[in-house]
């Protein structure tokens, strides 16, 4: 990759910028590593010693080119085998935004890794090889992105240089992808024709595709509106920690510390504590830097209440007129992440917000084929990387919302009681 084309410098010292997380998925040959390398390189996020190192290693391995995949392959086994084992996190800044890339491998264990990377993403970036069109893999990625409710999807039709920058090829892929994605619940989908290798439409608009009048990929990443993706309607505050300093000057102080999951809380608001159902008002919202008038996601704050009522970790503070469901049975989509299969009637720990309980699998309702979206209702369990709809019975009520409405209060993990491994990722239906 040649230097140059660097238009976006690193940020200045004082400027504030917004945090955006995106997940990329793909296999070795669709140009994903080249694209990430290009983004990092052109935003000056690759340092000279890292580049030198990659150049040396590429030469030693006889790659014949500077293999930017080596930048993200961090473990010895990965470098030796030329594969990516796990989700790798990469960072870059532009003057407007700080980006966190969750880079997930496309080969085996793809589902487990992509679900992990997708769980925190604001945006999913999917690569399609212009020569090959929409493959099974692209469809799988789009399905997982929609299942995890990633609000924005960007489909980069890559290797446009290898199809003579032909508009028809791009339009054909766009039509095919859009047609298929209609089955999924995707609200914002953007298509960009690019050449990651040559940089067309990655950072700068390409001069070689006059017919394309949309933005470059980086411009899109910098401007896509993510702040409004947060749920600001349903006030939810899972209590993580009860702050009781018990010092002389703060003898009677009692505060409830947590991160606002959704909605807006203001001093004076009437609230209800669940599951107890006790009500009170917010007396103050404290932080180390002083009191706040209001708290919204994802701020970490400490709330004081007007009344001395019993509140502990695992409780949720909400508004009396807008409550989550207090559920003892839940239906959920679950992605299985362990070598030991999920069995109907299996028992696991379930962790949801700051609350932990036990969950028993009452029924495997169906298993979904991530490629065809076919539902197999005969399924009785889930193997590693499989996704299915389960009915779970809980040892204690959890305070849940539908995942589609609230990612923070609709998500949970399942933990194996004997190994303590995280074995499942669930989304409440």
């Amino acid at each position: 990759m040649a230097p140059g084309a660097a238009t976006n410098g690193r940020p200045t010292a004082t400027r504030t910028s917004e945090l955006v997380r995106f997940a990329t998925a793909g296999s070795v040959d669709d140009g994903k590593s080249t694209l990430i390398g290009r983004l990092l390189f052109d935003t000056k996020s690759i340092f000279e010693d890292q580049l030198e190192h990659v150049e040396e290693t590429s030469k030693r391995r006889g790659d014949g080119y500077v293999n930017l995949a080596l930048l993200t392959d961090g473990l010895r086994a990965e470098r030796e085998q030329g594969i990516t084992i796990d989700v790798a996190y990469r960072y870059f800044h532009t003057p407007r935004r700080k980006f966190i890339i969750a880079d997930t491998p496309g080969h085996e264990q793809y589902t487990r890794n992509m679900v992990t990377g997708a769980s925190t993403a604001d945006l999913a970036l999917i690569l399609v090889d212009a020569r090959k069109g929409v493959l099974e893999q692209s469809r799988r990625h789009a399905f997982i992105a929609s299942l995890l409710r990633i609000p924005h999807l960007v489909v980069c039709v890559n290797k446009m240089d290898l199809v003579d920058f032909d508009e028809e090829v791009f339009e054909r892929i766009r039509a095919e992808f859009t047609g298929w994605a209609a089955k999924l619940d995707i609200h914002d989908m953007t298509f960009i024709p690019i050449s990651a290798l040559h940089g067309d439409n990655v950072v700068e608009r390409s001069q070689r595709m006059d017919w394309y009048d949309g933005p470059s990929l980086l411009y899109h990443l910098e401007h896509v509106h993510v702040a409004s993706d947060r749920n600001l309607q349903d006030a939810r505050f899972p209590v993580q920690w009860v702050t009781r300093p018990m010092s002389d000057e703060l003898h009677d102080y009692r505060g409830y510390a947590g991160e606002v999951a959704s909605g807006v809380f203001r001093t004076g608001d009437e609230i209800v504590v669940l599951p107890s159902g006790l009500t009170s008002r917010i007396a103050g919202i404290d932080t180390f830097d002083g009191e706040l008038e209001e708290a919204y996601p994802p701020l970490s704050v400490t709330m004081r209440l007007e009344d001395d009522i019993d509140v502990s970790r695992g409780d949720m503070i909400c508004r009396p007129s807008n409550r989550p469901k207090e559920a003892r049975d839940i239906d959920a989509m679950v992605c299985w992440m362990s070598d030991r299969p999920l069995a109907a009637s299996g028992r696991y720990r379930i962790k949801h917000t700051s609350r932990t309980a036990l969950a028993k699998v009452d029924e495997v309702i169906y298993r979904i084929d991530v490629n065809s979206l076919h539902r197999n209702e005969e399924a009785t369990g889930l193997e590693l990387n499989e996704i299915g709809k389960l009915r779970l019975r809980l040892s204690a009520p959890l305070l849940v919302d539908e995942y589609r409405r609230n990612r923070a209060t609709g998500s949970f993990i399942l933990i194996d009681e004997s190994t303590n491994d995280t074995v499942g990722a669930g989304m409440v239906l």
Partner: protein
Amino acid sequence: MTYEISHLRALESEAIHVIREVAAELERAVLLFSGGKDSAVLLHLARKAFHPGGLPFPVMHVDTGHNFPEVIEYRDRLVEEMGARLIVACVQDSIDKGRVTEESGPRASRNRLQSVTLLDAIEEHGFRAAFGGARRDEERARAKERILSFRDDFGQWDPKGQRPELWNVYNGFVKPGEHVRVFPLSNWTELDVWQYIAEEKLDLPCIYFAHERDVFKRDGMLYALSDHVELLPGEEPFKKWVRFRTVGDMSCTGAVASEATSLEDVVAEIAATRITERGETRADDRISEAAMEDRKKEGYF
């Protein structure tokens, strides 16, 4: 009202969430404090997490005995000001007890010995969680590490068998003898750390700012002249304006030539630098391509 939040506030809130979650779920946590900038930020965030209460866990320094005196002075000042409980685990004690053998020669370092001292201290105190200031942008093996990173009862890290980490739901379950390392600054970059220090006006050891010092050149890096390093033939000390970009042992931490005497100057310098902090200043990472991965598997920070 748009309820916008800057990237530094988002990172801060994420870190505070992690710290509270671990303190609530795991008995006996400890915060590993080296006196470096990352641990200074970590300690500040821990303080914010429990305000107006105090820290619900002690602070531990793994002391190699090869410290910059300025850093020890800073450590003691900060801990006293916060009223935190300080535990010092000494590599010298591990050497005296015969747990480890001191390296010898001009390139000797106690860097690797620290892992044993650290694991012994974790076992002795029965800590189930140890907070550290490591970041994923520092090093390639770290780019793959979880925020809650599990250690077996030998203190080992198994990079291929890590627990998946989803949303902000953390799994802190461990059995007796096992522990987790917790990295609330995982998603911060070096520049984020400096911007945050500038925004919060945090106190740091003075060696992070440019000063004139006796140094010598080795393997293309500048080292501080001290009792902890033997000079090789041909190495001549000289005076130079330098600052330190990372803080480790005097024996393996390089200085960079710099005139940056204020926080603003340092942030501007970091924003313009083209070399990673570990590449520029840490001899301990130059041993091999997988130096960090190997040390981490043995229980290193």
